[in-house]
């Protein structure tokens, strides 16, 4: 702490070059955006009309359920796949690095390429359906693209990659001696997991889960490219963009954005309420 000198008046000036642009480009729009939700495009004065419209018109309020119905099950499946894979390869295992690398790989491709890849692989004439037909398992191909299923698959692939990329490092923070200790004391592998490994990693896993969940609530390009943005995958962002770019109704667009932000906050607080009920703290063995 002694290397820090208390700031003089002049020093504050050096904060301005970065603060002013942020105030203009971020804080002011944020506040203006919030006020905008209480205004109408043409008329003056404050009104709740936008929110009333949102919660009475099924065209709008349906987006809440559509988004959550798409994103919440996907996130849970992503967590299971990512945790299952990274837990299995957590100890030095031959090929573990390659498995981790391939699991995380879709993250480097980015959303748009993954969306196109899902279409190429799961479309009716794609490898997935032709393989199943050739094996005699099905007669008609599944419709897995340009609908709920397509968006779901693309989300699962991207989300699993994201969660796994965070979990890989996290698994290493649990001292392997703790598991060994439990095992020598007579615990089976499952009991060791249940009573030692999981309680220690739980809070971090839930944090990553929450991060991924709120990221996916903002899903857009996947919903548009592999999904069916007109109905099944009409998420918050799809509607917000529609209002902004097609109808030029920035007030309504921002109302949708605010409702999305609140939804994200609610989801976050639910996950953190669950997280608080377990052990939160260091998993290291020394103070």
């Amino acid at each position, binding site marked *: 702490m002694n290397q820090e000198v208390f700031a003089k008046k002049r020093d504050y000036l050096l904060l301005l070059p970065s603060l002013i642009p942020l105030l203009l480009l971020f804080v002011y729009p944020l506040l203006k955006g919030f006020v905008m939700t209480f205004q109408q495009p043409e008329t003056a004065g404050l009104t709740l009309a936008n929110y009333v419209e949102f919660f009475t018109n099924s065209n709008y309020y349906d987006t809440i359920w559509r988004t959550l119905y798409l994103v919440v099950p996907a996130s849970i499946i992503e967590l299971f796949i990512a945790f299952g894979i990274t837990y299995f390869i957590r100890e030095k295992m031959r090929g573990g690095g390659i498995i981790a690398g391939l699991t995380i790989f879709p993250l480097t491709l980015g959303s748009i390429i993954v969306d196109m890849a899902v279409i190429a692989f799961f479309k009716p004439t794609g490898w997935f359906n032709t393989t199943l037909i050739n094996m005699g398992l099905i007669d008609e191909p599944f419709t897995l693209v340009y609908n709920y299923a397509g968006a779901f698959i693309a989300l699962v692939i991207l989300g699993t990659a994201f969660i796994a990329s965070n979990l890989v490092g996290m698994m290493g923070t649990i001292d392997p001696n703790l598991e060994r200790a439990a095992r020598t004391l007579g615990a089976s592998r499952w009991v060791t997991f249940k009573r030692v490994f999981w309680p220690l990693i739980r809070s971090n896993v839930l944090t990553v889960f929450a991060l991924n969940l709120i990221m996916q609530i903002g899903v857009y390009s996947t919903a548009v490219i592999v999904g069916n943005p007109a109905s099944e995958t009409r998420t918050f962002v799809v509607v917000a963009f529609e209002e902004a770019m097609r109808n030029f109704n920035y007030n309504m667009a921002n109302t949708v954005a605010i409702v999305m932000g609140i939804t994200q906050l609610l989801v976050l607080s639910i996950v953190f309420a669950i997280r608080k009920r377990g052990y939160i703290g260091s*998993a290291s063995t020394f103070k």
Partner: protein
Amino acid sequence: MSQAVKKKNSTTILDSTRVEIRNLTKQFGSTTAVHNASLDIENGEFMTLLGPSGCGKTTILSMILGTLQPTSGEITFNGQPINKIDMSRRDIGMVFQNYALFPHMTVAQNIAFGLDMRKVSKSEKKKRVEEAIEMVQLNDLGNRFIKDLSGGQQQRVALARAIVIRPRVLLLDEPLSNLDAKLRKEMRTQLKKLHDELGITTIYVTHDQEEALSLSTKVTVMSNGIIQQIGTPKEIFGKPKNYFVANFIGYGNFLRGKLIDEQDGQFIFEADKDSVRLVVNHDKQHQVGDEVILTIKPEMLEIITDPKIGMNTLSGKITVSDYIGSATGYEVETKEGRTFKVNVLGLNPYAMGEEVRLYLDPAKLLIIDEE
């Protein structure tokens, strides 16, 4: 001789196990961590595996524990091979170097963990946890979390957690290495007392020769994956078998050469480098013609003023003087260009550069082999 005799004064005696290790080898890729090690650990014995880091002692411990599978060879408990037994079924109490205490559990929960796994009844569990807590003197700390304990207290919890399950064998992996010097001594005494009380067959891994000699009933010295010597602390300390063992446990002065003659029950030794001749007492293992190493501990070397003693003396001058409390450590450089380490009790009566004579008592010189 038998360990069992020692238990006469004890109040609690647990049954225990004889551990045999037969031709145990462990390879990691092309490197051999343990080479063909054979070792018997008697009922109730306190066996220390002593050696520098990387000598294979921890690898042997891991194979007994079950975290590593031997490449070849066998480990048995009371004659039963355990290689294929899952580590959770081996009934071993283990104290890890970093204690590996569960940070999300209290002291009592940590200690009770092994009992939970054994489905011990609630009342029995309570009784045994309390006993264990008392045994390691952690009274009133049962409800604390691990992070609220000092290093020494954590160490005791780890010990209690390992013994409360009444293990067949107790394994300790450098348990004292994370404690400060004073606490280490205290814990050493406690560990010894505990072992005397319980009589559990104990295998202790350390690189600290002082710990090994003070705690154990038997010591195994290892280097480079090979067992160098097995013996009681007295044997190891008094009669190290080879250069490595002698050097490791603190013999400081070595002369390489040959036994050239024998007179009146004594050998005549001639050094290779400078043909220094010394008389040394006869021992049974060596004979004239052997290539050997002579060694003597720094505290066995004498600096003399008596001009009458002429045999086995070397003259030189003091080049280093290091006062270490109860004794002073000197380095004496002889005319032949050798350096000897000498420890002299008391204040330092010799000045730097002073000409002195060293006396190498034939009875205190030790003949050892290179390998």
